[in-house]
């Protein structure tokens, strides 16, 4: 494999490399042009308005660098990351098995499905005040918020996938005296996983909203606190810097979710 590809490269390296480069350049040119234009617009808008309103891009970068150098940013990032991962993993480890259980027991699925759909469509933020007054300011209520935001997309999509399993498959497995364990492992899991991953992609976005909401409205920590304190101090540069960072994290996580979904989508049939 390796030898073959190197031989091919030796064959006509000069020409092919150059064309690849120009194609690459042409493909990415619009992205870089639009990025530069956007930054220019931001810079001009920031310079021509009051500093309390908007801060130019260059100043945002400077403020961001100060936050990184001060060590403030890293500790808050780790804090938020811990919250996000705990809540998200909990949602995955509850939502997936529960969804598959509903798939295996049709009576249960038919009974509970409408309620899952209702909870999936309910704005979970509305529950934050109740969680606050019942559980207070610790780490646990915040994890609960992230969990509630993330679990229903996972559950809803897993059940959706479970409905797509053909009953014949389970019948065949049973008639070959397959054990319950291997039935789950070899029929249920591969069939529901692509759907679960669609849920995971949605859950990543929702969990991120839940994380910031928990940090805003419950005890103020993490990246949420970074924005809040900057806004309370009228440090507009700090607000822009933290929004930029959370935005970039959001974009990165969204891409990751899409990659995961596409990876498993190949199993879908």
């Amino acid at each position: 494999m390796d030898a073959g590809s190197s031989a091919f490269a030796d064959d006509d390296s000069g020409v092919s490399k150059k064309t690849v480069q120009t194609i690459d350049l042409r493909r990415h040119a619009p992205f870089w042009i639009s990025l530069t234009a956007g930054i220019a617009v931001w810079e001009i808008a920031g310079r021509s308005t009051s500093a309390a309103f908007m801060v130019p891009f260059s100043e945002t970068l400077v403020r961001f660098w100060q936050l990184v150098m001060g060590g403030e940013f890293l500790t808050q990032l780790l804090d938020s990351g811990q919250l996000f991962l705990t809540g998200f993993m909990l949602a995955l480890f509850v939502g997936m098995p529960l969804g598959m259980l509903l798939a295996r027991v049709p009576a249960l699925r038919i009974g509970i499905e409408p309620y899952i759909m209702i909870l999936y469509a309910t704005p979970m933020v509305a529950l934050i005040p109740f969680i606050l007054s019942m559980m207070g300011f610790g780490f646990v209520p915040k994890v609960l918020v992230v969990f509630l935001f993330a679990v229903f997309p996972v559950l809803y999509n897993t059940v959706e996938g479970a409905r797509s399993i053909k009953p014949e498959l389970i019948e065949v497995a049973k008639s070959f005296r397959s054990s319950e364990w291997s039935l789950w492992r070899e029929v249920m899991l591969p069939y529901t996983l692509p759907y679960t991953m669609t849920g995971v992609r949605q859950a990543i976005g929702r969990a991120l909203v839940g994380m910031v909401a928990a940090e805003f409205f419950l005890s103020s920590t993490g990246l949420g606190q970074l924005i809040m304190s900057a806004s309370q101090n009228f440090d507009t540069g700090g607000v822009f810097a933290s929004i930029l960072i959370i935005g970039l994290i959001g974009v990165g996580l969204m891409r990751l979710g899409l990659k995961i979904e596409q990876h498993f989508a190949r199993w879908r049939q």
Partner: protein
Amino acid sequence: MTESAIGISAAVATARKPSPLVDRLLGTFVPRLIAGLAILLLWEFVVRVFAPAYVAKPTTVVMAIPRVITDSAFLAATGATLAAVAEGLAIALVFGTIIGLLMGRNAMFESAIRHYVNGFYAVPMIVVLPLFSLWFGYSSATRIATIIFAATFSIIINVADGARSVPREYLEVARSFRSGRLRMLIEIVLPASLPYLLAGFRLAAGRALIGAVVAEFFISVGGLGYYILYNSRSYHHNEAFVGVLLLAAFGVGFELLVNWNTRRFMPWYRRDEIEN
């Protein structure tokens, strides 16, 4: 052999019995009713045994409903939130559709703003609240701005997807009849991407509702979200929970309305395609 014979006779029996209603009742309605009652009972039991008296439980929430829905403060709050959501959604729909159509049909425009649209869509909408409250003050303008921000990008993305997937023949026919570009956009591309627009609108409505509630929490402007916040802070959990029920009803209502419209007016459109 015998099994299949029984199966056939059973099929014949059910075919002869002209009551699909009874079947449906026994097949779905009864399990759902049982499950719902079980959930309510469990909730009631857990709260009664483990939680303090002020925590909402089904019996006390039900008793609070008549009191709350005749309360003028509650009605005013609901009206304020709904009006803001409707206004924000209308603005988002107009701008989102225009930008989306242009994006789907113009490659230059698309490559210029695609990354910004996707980027703003991925930003958790709640982080813009401190900035918006700085810009618009602690007023209902911040709420409208948050709703618009939450709703616009999902409409743009979906309309652009729809405009991109308009069958080429439609446009070729229009072009050969010398139709103008604007007319083509409005009379062919827009109707053809309507199912996508509806799917985007459904997403946007859910996000707009969340945006409204979050904004009300954050800037304490009067509305359903603030009603919930205020009442749960003063330990009137039952009253506050009626507000949550209403929000859930709106969320589900939007969903059902859009699904029904898609099925009713665009039956040729496959359901599972819109779902994602």
